[in-house]
């Protein structure tokens, strides 16, 4: 199995490298499509027939391991397959713009890393744990590191990529520590052994260590700071697959841990609380920071953090609900969280691709230079609208279905008297998140696509090639299906939820199936109603005088486009609330109130994460200090260096004599 995979990987790499420049993408596309089709085949057969074991082997490090697909793996395989196909189809048009700038080897490396990322993500979710898991996890990190480095001639890209690599390895250390702990106690480092570990040893330390390790990848607060740096640096299709799917592998790990706590109510309760709380904090932090950003991709990155928060809220509700003895609450939370994983992978892929369309035309992601793009890129605008409504969790699209399930879980908690206070906390957090998401995305959409252009570059924008549109339409189709026919979409998700919680889901699913059925009718009714109103309006207007006149400037006749509301001013009101979470960096000087005839000013404000400086700055300072001491040794004289070598040899000699070495 391993050898064949390696061989296939080598062949794919060689093919990508030898193919002519324009054919490289097709090689990558065919490889990824083949892998995706295989994965989808596995998904279907697993969901229909139960667990499939592909390979068994023994490693020297952690003992027996296997590659197998169960229901949880199937869910993740499915989203990886869909998102990766969309990504690689999208990448053709996007990467073509760089053919002049980069050598063919550079492009080949990019596509090889993309294939590697897809394959390693799939191995992460089918591995039973231990060495093969850590190996594919590390491979995934390295592949994504190479992908982020695509525009390596930009300094901020190199910095972000390095930052990402360092952060991921801190997370990796936690994982290694966790697996070693697991192996020491149980003699196996598979996820299946976690259950045994939880029974025989103190469960919380292991959970916390692994939770931190997985949380680093998922972007949990306060380990989220790599996301808003890495996404603006990475090419858009890479952001799409990283944000849509790769960070979900962190959630996958957390799911595996939750799967292991079956009957230990106390533990389930404690872990549920940890997950719920970290979800609430991550979600709120992410959404408020998202609303404050003025860079499209930074905003989307923070929104990914927020969505991970929502997913964790769902998981927390599920765990606390099960601990409180309510299967219904547990299933609602779990199905909501799992469906949200799927949903987020769909709309976030689309959103990052839209951002890529804009970037490849505008060559910037600063939204304050845009405006009125909908006129120049209408298809992108429509698709982005679609994704915006979905991510704001508004009916009738898919985001609403998953959030509704989580809400129902929490409202059931309130109405049945199970853990009312936690449920209330979750409701407050989720509703605030829902409200601010609407603010953040109406800002994003309004400033970028609507209004008048804020710079002359907008006029030169044209719609992107149709292949990219097709790539974006693929997730859009799933969004529509899940949103309008949730009663069918929930069935496979419920199967997966059953696998995580270990209990039977039939009763709980039967109790919210009528709700989803009604929801489906209501979604269709809503669309029909809106359509009818629009048709009625157009018919009535046919015979009437429809004029075009300038936007009402409230009596002021010399309006210009620079007077429009910008992204910064749109979220000004939120700043009073968001201020404690941010650290502003200001370039230039704003126009002073006393300046009656203002001269030319340059003013740029950036809202940086406070955690960033809290976590990032102290070790930079520490390194500086250590470096200062080390630098004293660098005298530049050869005789000093010879002395150092001599001292070193002497120390080694002494050590050898004493017998330490």
């Amino acid at each position, binding site marked *: 199995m391993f050898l064949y995979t390696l061989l296939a990987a080598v062949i794919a790499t060689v093919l990508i490298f030898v193919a002519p420049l324009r054919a490289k993408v097709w090689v990558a596309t065919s490889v990824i499509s083949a892998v995706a089709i295989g994965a989808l085949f596995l998904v279907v057969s697993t969901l229909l027939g139960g667990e499939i074991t592909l390979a068994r082997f023994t490693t020297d490090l952690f003992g027996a391991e296997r590659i197998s697909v169960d229901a949880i793996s199937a869910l993740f395989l499915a989203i990886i397959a869909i998102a990766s196909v969309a990504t690689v189809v999208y990448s053709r048009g996007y990467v073509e713009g760089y053919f002049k700038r980069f050598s063919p080897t550079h492009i080949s490396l990019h596509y090889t890393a993309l294939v590697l990322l897809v394959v390693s993500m799939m191995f992460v979710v089918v591995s039973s744990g231990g060495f093969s898991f850590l190996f594919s996890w590390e491979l995934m990190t390295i592949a994504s590191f190479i992908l982020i480095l695509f525009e390596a001639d930009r300094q901020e890209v190199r910095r972000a990529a390095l930052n990402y690599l360092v952060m991921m390895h801190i997370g990796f250390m936690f994982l290694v520590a966790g697996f070693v702990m697991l192996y020491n106690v149980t003699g196996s480092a598979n996820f299946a052994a976690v259950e045994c570990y939880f029974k025989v040893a103190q469960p919380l330390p292991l959970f916390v260590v692994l939770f931190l390790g997985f949380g680093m990848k998922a972007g949990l607060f306060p380990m989220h700071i790599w996301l808003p740096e890495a996404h603006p640096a990475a090419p858009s299709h890479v952001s799409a697959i990283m944000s849509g799917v790769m960070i979900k592998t962190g959630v996958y790990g957390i799911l595996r841990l939750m799967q292991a706590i079956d009957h230990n109510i106390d533990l389930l309760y404690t872990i549920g609380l940890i997950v719920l709380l970290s979800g609430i904090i991550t979600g709120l932090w992410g959404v408020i920071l998202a609303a404050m950003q003025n860079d499209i991709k930074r905003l989307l990155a923070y929104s990914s953090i927020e969505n991970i928060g929502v997913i964790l809220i769902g998981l927390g509700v599920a765990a606390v609900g099960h601990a409180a003895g309510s299967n219904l609450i547990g299933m609602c939370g779990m199905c909501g969280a799992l469906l949200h994983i799927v949903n987020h992978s769909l709309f976030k892929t689309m959103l990052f691709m839209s951002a890529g369309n804009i970037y490849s035309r505008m060559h910037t992601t600063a939204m304050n230079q845009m405006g*009125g793009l*909908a*006129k120049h890129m209408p298809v992108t*605008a429509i698709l982005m609208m679609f994704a915006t*409504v979905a991510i704001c969790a*508004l*009916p009738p699209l898919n985001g*609403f279905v998953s959030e*509704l399930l989580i*809400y*129902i879980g929490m*409202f059931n908690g*309130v*109405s*049945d*008297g199970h853990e*009312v*206070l936690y*449920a*209330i906390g979750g*409701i*407050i957090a989720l*509703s*605030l998140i*829902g*409200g601010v998401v*609407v*603010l953040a*995305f109406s*800002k994003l959409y*309004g400033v970028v*696509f609507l*209004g008048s252009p804020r710079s002359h570059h907008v006029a030169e924008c044209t719609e992107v090639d149709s292949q990219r549109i097709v790539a974006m339409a693929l997730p859009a189709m799933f969004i529509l299906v899940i949103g309008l026919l949730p009663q069918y979409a929930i069935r496979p998700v419920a199967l997966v939820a059953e696998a995580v919680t270990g209990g039977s889901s039939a009763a709980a699913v039967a109790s*919210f199936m009528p*709700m989803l059925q*009604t929801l489906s009718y*209501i979604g269709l009714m*809503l669309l029909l*109603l*809106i359509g009818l109103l629009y048709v009625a*309006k157009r018919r009535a*207007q046919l015979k*009437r*005088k*429809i*004029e*075009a*006149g*300038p*936007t009402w*400037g*409230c009596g002021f006749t010399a*309006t210009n*486009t620079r*007077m*429009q*509301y910008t992204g910064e*001013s*749109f979220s000004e*009101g939120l700043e009073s609330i968001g201020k404690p979470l941010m650290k502003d960096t200001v370039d230039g000087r704003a126009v002073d109130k006393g300046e009656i005839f203002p001269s030319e000013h340059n003013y740029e404000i950036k809202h940086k994460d406070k955690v960033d400086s809290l976590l990032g700055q102290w070790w930079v300072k520490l390194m500086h200090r250590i470096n200062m001491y080390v630098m004293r040794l660098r005298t530049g004289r050869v005789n000093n260096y010879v002395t150092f070598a001599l001292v070193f040899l002497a120390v080694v000699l002494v050590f050898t004599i004493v017998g330490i070495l």
Partner: protein
Amino acid sequence: MLIKLLNTLLMIVVALSITGVINRTRALLSGRKGIRFFQHVYNARLLLRKGAVYSPTTTALFRIAPCVYLGAAIMAFLFIPVANLEPVLSFHGDIVLVAYLLALSRIAIVLAAMDTGSSFEGMGAAREALYGALVEPALMMGLATFALFCGYSSFADIFSTAQMFDTNITIVMLLLAYVFLIIMIIESGRVPVDDPRTHLELTMIHEVMCLDYSGIDLAMINIAGWLKNAIWAMIAANAVSVVVCFHWEFATPLAILGSGITIGAIESLRARNKLSRNTTYILTIVAMSALVLLTGFLLYQNIDI
């Protein structure tokens, strides 16, 4: 079926009358003769007959937005029961759907305002988005209080099981009615949060977002406004009638008069907030709502013991 029809008819009556009551109250308190009770309906009819002016800056979104605004409001409207009557639509968990339908209508109008490229409308849009975001937790906590006492999460079930309510919770229900009344004021852009009569676009919120709408579009926005008012007024009235007299003959006039007179009186008697104070005002309501929920929770625990 008949009950559902009656429910809808009553809701439409409430929707049409509230603005009239507000106007009459204001006229009365300021010693004017005032406009006709149904003047706003005549105005809307007039608008429905007119043509339209569209700015060349706008896109198709600007023309679809009023339909989404009205469509979502109509859908939400159909979920609200009048006291013991049955609403047209209902399912387990519809309280969340209603809140999110109203959010859908909000994002439609906010984006439409951004579409005009006007600084004033951008201002209105930014404020509406912020206030909408902040008021959401208050709304959800209010609904959670209902869920706590009734054990259901759909409007119809909540109010149909409400007869068994203890008198202990009178205070909670009255406070809840107050919270929903304030939510109504915030959402419909009334004094002290917003002033629909103001002539200064810089300080307007809701009205400034519709500056560029005319004709049928404006009529749609106005009608949606009435429907939303009816939703909030009816929820508040239901909360009160649950503890006083749970019957539609009581709840309907209460919804019309209670909210109409209160809003009219507030508009005549107090000035609007400074805009920068609005955030604090809304957060106070959120805190209030949390307090109601917590009080309710404590009372609920006592009742059980």
